[in-house]
């Protein structure tokens, strides 16, 4: 029963996504004003050739700060989880 319900949900979800996907056109995005601005002005505002790096670290630096925090938190979580398993490790980290 549970398995049939799961398959039904997956089929409905797939049809839903497929109908949306058939409507989209590939290779011709509509609203490109923001990206055109970045590509036109990124070189003089940040003095950088790589526009992706300009966006990651300059225009959207807050995103990257949050991303670094997520990575840091995940590594701290992994370290805390393994800490009890590894014997003789408790004195090293203190």
């Amino acid at each position: 029963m549970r398995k049939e319900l799961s398959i039904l949900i997956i089929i409905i979800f797939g049809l839903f996504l497929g109908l949306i996907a058939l409507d989209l056109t590939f290779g011709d995005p509509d609203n490109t004003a923001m990206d055109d601005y970045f590509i036109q002005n990124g070189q003089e505002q940040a003095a950088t050739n790589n526009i992706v790096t300009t966006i990651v670290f300059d225009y959207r630096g807050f995103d990257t700060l949050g991303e670094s925090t997520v990575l840091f938190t995940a590594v701290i979580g992994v370290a805390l989880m393994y800490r009890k398993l590894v014997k003789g490790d408790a004195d090293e980290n203190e």
Partner: protein
Amino acid sequence: MRMSKIVRFAADVLFGAIVIFGLYVIMHGHLTPGGGFQGGAIVATGAALVIVAHSYEEVIGMIKKAVLMAQESAGLVMFAGVALIAIGLGTTFFFNFLANSGSLFGMTVPFGPNPGELNTGGVLPLMNIAVGIEVWGGLAIVILYMLSGIGKKEEA
């Protein structure tokens, strides 16, 4: 879990080359495809190679986990610190105060396609280095901890 001498020697030789390539990707993050995250992941791959080739006990004798953890924290603090310096200078958070200033990383670039000059980009190379240090330490410590768990299980 200790590999043969040939594998260990090859891993030691390749580790240098992988680290150099990762640092190159980090340093040229503002000119070519790449950056702090990718370069840090490459260097961490080299660390994984050494950890797999040598045994866990041998590696844990060479480098402490606390050092890697401190390295990761230092990267994050450096990243936030570079962003905070901009507030101290009277501008907004994450303002690119070094761009076009003529000092460190401060050369201007002409508009359009150009060969690229390493001494450009303002604070972006500094942030790339900071993030590279952070990702290097973080991924290396994750690999080290996972290998420690596996080694423990085989003993028991």
